[in-house]
């Protein structure tokens, strides 16, 4: 749910309840006030009647005057009259309608007799007043809700714009893209704080990324240089004429180990570079040509193993990817198919615009095909290969959103890459 929707929903519910409750309170308060006023008027009437009785020693005439009615009733001896204010409905013949009247009853003692005095005033005006007040209040409530809704819509959308801009920037943020965050200036403190925090975080991440990148480069430098020294010294030793068989074998082992270590290091650095998205520049690449080229390079290698190549490569297949990555990918695939092949085996390559299928004959594997994509997983643990080739392939595919699938059917290894 959008924040705006949620906010609006809560806002409208709360506002409505608050306005209704206050409307009810308002009604009772005004009602009480007006009735109180009426009662006071009635008491003034009482005073006038009391004055009249004292001066004239007689009851005034019952009267109907300006909605005010006064009447006197002689009470039977022994009956008492309670002083009381009541609201009562009367049927008015004039208006042909029911009317509410405020009635004030109290006793008067005159010449030893008890009279019940009843003064009443119409409550109609009061009721009408309350109705008008309520109507106005209700109109204001509805109007206010509508205005609130519209204002929220327009204003909040505008208010949240800096936030949305920041969000969009964050979504597009790409470490390897080397593009700084361009955040909109805002006068709202919260968003300014957010932008500030995002900027700080962005530059820190950028710094860490740069540090990591240079660490990778430096690690490569630091490891490759001693390796280069060891390798060169061993190769110089090989030139010596006075070597004994034992020494030759030691030198050979060291040389092999040194080369393996250096290749391992290079592969790991390559994986890190791919992980760090350091192969960004994409271009349209003719993979038909690229695969053909790889097959040419390794032609003699295949001839040595007497491998037959059945290629079914469509002309002019282009995909958009990084050139160096494409070269690494296809070279890895082709060498993989040669390396893990058997004598007099076969390699079948099928390339279309949408997919590349490489099948090669090879020994049966006990390993789960999915595991072969993991680092240092080898079909044959004794093999001298590093077990990084397929994980590099997988990583490149992942980064380019290609899906890759490895299947084993009897002695046929089938690797399928779907370009998207």
């Amino acid at each position, binding site marked *: 749910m959008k924040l705006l929707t949620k906010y609006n929903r809560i806002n409208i519910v709360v506002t409505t309840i608050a306005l209704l409750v206050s409307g009810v309170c308002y009604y009772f308060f005004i009602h009480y006030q007006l009735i109180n006023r009426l009662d006071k008027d009635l008491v003034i009437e009482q005073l006038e009647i009391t004055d009249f009785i004292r001066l004239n020693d007689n009851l005034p005439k019952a009267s109907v005057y300006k909605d005010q009615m006064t009447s006197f009733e002689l009470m039977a001896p022994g009956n008492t009259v309670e002083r009381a204010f009541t609201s009562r409905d009367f049927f008015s013949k004039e208006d042909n309608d029911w009317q509410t009247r405020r009635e004030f009853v109290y006793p008067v003692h005159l010449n030893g007799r008890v009279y019940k005095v009843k003064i009443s005033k119409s409550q109609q005006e009061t009721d009408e007043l309350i109705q008008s007040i309520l109507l106005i209040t209700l109109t204001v409530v509805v109007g206010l809700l509508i205005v609130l809704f519209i204002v929220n819509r327009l204003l909040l959308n505008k208010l949240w714009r800096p936030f949305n801009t920041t969000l969009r920037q964050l979504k597009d943020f790409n470490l390897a893209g080397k593009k700084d965050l361009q955040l909109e200036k805002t006068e709202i403190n919260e968003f300014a704080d957010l932008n500030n925090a995002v900027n700080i975080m962005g530059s820190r991440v950028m710094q860490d990324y740069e540090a990591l990148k240079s660490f990778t*480069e430096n690690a*490569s*430098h*630091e490891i*490759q*240089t001693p*390796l*280069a*020294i*060891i*390798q*060169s*010294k061993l*190769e*110089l030793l*090989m*030139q010596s004429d006075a070597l004994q*068989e034992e020494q*030759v*074998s030691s*030198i*050979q082992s060291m*040389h*092999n180990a*040194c*080369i393996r270590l*250096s*290749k391992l290091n*290079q592969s790991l*650095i390559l994986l890190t570079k791919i992980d760090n998205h350091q192969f960004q520049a994409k271009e349209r690449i003719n993979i038909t040509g690229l695969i053909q080229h790889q097959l040419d*390079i*390794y032609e*003699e*290698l295949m001839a*040595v*193993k007497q491998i037959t190549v059945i290629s079914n490569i469509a002309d002019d297949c282009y995909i958009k990817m990084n050139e*160096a990555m494409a070269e690494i990918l296809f*070279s*890895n695939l082709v*060498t993989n198919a040669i*390396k893990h092949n058997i004598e007099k085996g076969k390699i079948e390559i099928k390339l279309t615009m949408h997919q590349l299928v490489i099948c090669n004959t090879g020994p049966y594997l006990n390993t789960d095909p999915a595991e072969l994509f993991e680092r240092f997983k080898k079909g044959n643990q004794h*093999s*001298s*290969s*590093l077990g990084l*080739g397929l994980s590099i392939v997988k990583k490149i595919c992942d980064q380019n959103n290609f899906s890759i699938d490895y299947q084993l059917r009897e002695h046929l290894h089938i690797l399928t890459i779907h370009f998207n």
Partner: protein
Amino acid sequence: MKILIIEDEKGLSDSMVTYLKGESYVCETAYDYAAALNKIERYNYDCILLDIMLPGGSGLQILKELKANNKLDGVLIISAKNSLDDKVAGLKLGADDYLAKPFHLSELSARVAAIIRRRNFEGNDRIQFNEITIETLAKVIMVQGEPLELTRKEYELLLYFVSNKGRVISKDAIAEHLWGDELQGNIDFIYTHIKNLRKKLTEAGAEDYIKSVYGMGYKFSQQ
């Protein structure tokens, strides 16, 4: 032939000097940026081996200085940073070739020989080894004046041997030279290639110069 080796790792620099001296090159060394700059300003070299990360400055800056002074020295960049950017930057600045550490000394020697051939013998691109003649521009092999048909890899293999004559070359160095460093694992197939080349050469009337050195590799030599 004079070669300047600009490399801050003394161990590596020494190895290169020892190996290249065996090819009868005159080698000089510089271990840091200032010394290197000093040398290139004063002398001309047939080939400069240039490390990129140097104490006191970048090898690429030295390359820029060379080009700014219109020096014709051939430049082979040797870098531990096997990064494409460095390679492209180096070649764009006018370096002749790029070699990533660690490398085989035989590979270094072959690359240096190729650079010097391209620089110094314009038009004259002929390498003579007794009865074998290699024309590097036309990529033609002649044995006793008769042309010899070789596959591309066989031609490259022969040229590699001749560039490292009298030296023991490991099988790894050969495999890497011919197929790049993507190849990992068993490289016994090299044997078949060597056998084919040997057969073609001897059948054409050349002596069998390719010797197998037990346990280590091969050697192309007279005796």
